[in-house]
């Protein structure tokens, strides 16, 4: 069987570190190179080359990559560059595996969705829908045992980042998704808020119509200095009347004994049920050495796999009984390609998610519920 050739757009210090590893681990794939746009920063160039060297694959100039024979492009370049790269390779008939969030705004996101549609290629956006707990939540809804779903609630609060001195002041909200700040911070209602928007839309199988939202700087000094929120909360109104609460953010390394508060609560007319990666876990009680956060000054938030490798976690960290294989999302993408099926979270869905997040920022600034614009995009 001929293996699918995978080109990596973007390198180290991005999620490409894990995407590359997961594609390489699948016997159906072979990595063929790393590329990026011309004119990128020296640090990005170095990071791309490092990934190429680690996997013993070519580090290609962009012009070379455009004509490099390949089947799949894993797009994990800087946010502002994603539309150009995704559109360029979709136009050349490459299937796209896309980092999240899809793009820094709806115009870029819609361009990607349109390019994918016009080219007739397949696309999948990284998400949590292929985890065991998300699949269990979907099964619960479809079984009807909760009764009709009235509300859903999701927490995506990641226990990463060093606590710092952050004053008790309200954020000056902006009505748009401002340019992504430079490393090492992210705009967390955008970056982490994507996950609940994507998962809840997928679970409920209906679009969000209205958003009420707020952001905060509560935990991380780096985010406060960069004027990038570390926390966001949303009320979502879905088509058909179902409503949702969302709390998302990066809350500090020691805010949780495990990875953080990652959970969905489904509230049906009959009962409630919780779904989470730590739904079943072994609690560990022992004396623990002091927690030592990773010492990577370029990544104090521990965003990237390379930083977390070899990190000392406390001995008291709970042990989850069910651990999703890290390759689950990419494996699902490859399965969809093999079966000529549409992936669960496509570029078109990703564009809808951006529309929801844009509405969230408008709401945070206006203090009012804001409608989600552009309902023309189909899942």
């Amino acid at each position, binding site marked *: 069987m001929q293996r699918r050739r995978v080109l990596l757009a973007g390198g180290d210090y991005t999620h490409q570190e894990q995407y590359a590893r997961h594609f390489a681990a699948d016997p159906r794939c072979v990595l063929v190179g790393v590329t990026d746009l011309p004119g990128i920063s020296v640090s990005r160039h170095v990071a791309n080359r490092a990934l190429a060297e680690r996997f013993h694959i070519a580090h290609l100039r962009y012009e070379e990559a455009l004509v490099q024979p390949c089947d799949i492009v894993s797009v994990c370049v800087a946010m502002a560059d994603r539309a150009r790269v995704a559109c360029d390779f979709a136009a050349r008939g490459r299937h796209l595996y896309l980092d999240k969030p899809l793009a820094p705004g709806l115009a870029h996101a819609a361009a990607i969705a349109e390019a994918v549609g016009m080219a007739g290629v397949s696309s999948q956006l990284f998400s949590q829908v292929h985890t065991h707990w998300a699949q269990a939540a979907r099964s619960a809804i479809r079984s009807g045992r909760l009764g*009709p779903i009235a509300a859903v609630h999701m927490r995506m609060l990641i226990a990463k980042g060093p606590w710092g001195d952050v004053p008790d002041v309200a954020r000056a909200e902006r009505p748009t998704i401002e340019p992504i700040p430079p490393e090492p911070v992210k705009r967390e209602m955008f970056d982490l808020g994507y996950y609940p928007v994507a998962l809840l839309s997928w679970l409920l199988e209906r679009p969000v119509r209205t958003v009420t939202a707020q952001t905060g700087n509560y935990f991380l000094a780096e985010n406060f200095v960069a004027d990038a929120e570390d926390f966001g909360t949303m009320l979502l109104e879905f088509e058909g009347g179902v409503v949702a609460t969302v*709390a998302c953010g990066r809350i500090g390394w*020691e805010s949780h004994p495990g990875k953080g*508060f990652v959970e969905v609560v489904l*509230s049906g*007319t009959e009962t409630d049920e919780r779904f989470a990666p730590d739904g079943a876990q072994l609690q560990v009680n022992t004396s623990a050495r002091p927690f030592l956060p990773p010492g990577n000054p370029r990544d104090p938030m521990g965003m990237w796999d390379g930083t977390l490798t070899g990190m000392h976690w406390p001995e008291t960290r709970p042990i989850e009984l069910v651990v999703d294989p890290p390759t689950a999302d990419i494996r699902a993408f490859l399965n969809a390609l093999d079966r000529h099926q549409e992936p669960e979270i496509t570029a078109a869905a990703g564009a809808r998610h951006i529309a929801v997040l844009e509405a969230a920022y408008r709401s945070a600034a206006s203090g009012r519920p804001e409608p989600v614009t552009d309902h023309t995009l189909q899942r």
Partner: protein
Amino acid sequence: MADIQTQRLDELGSAIRLALREDRIGLPRAIHWLVRGPQGTALIDGILGCIDTIFDCPRGDVRSVDGPRCRLILARWVGGQTATLSAAYGERAGLIDLVVLGSRGSLVYRDIGER
């Protein structure tokens, strides 16, 4: 006699304030609170009042969204704190699920109620 769920919410408020007095989690910054029971949305005022004592500053605006037999609240306090709350009607004393995020830690409470 106080409703069981109301009593438990009062107990929760006391425990949270104790944790804050003992400086267990730093300054309280954000709360995500889910509740379901026979009193339904009637619990909202009491919970917001409890959160007032947790954040210990004047409350700002309160925005609400109504769903099927539930109400969602997003409220702000003048120090920048936020609380997101869902209160739903249920025939039996049901769910209380609460996370309080502080500047140096968190508090968690879960009670699935009567079955």
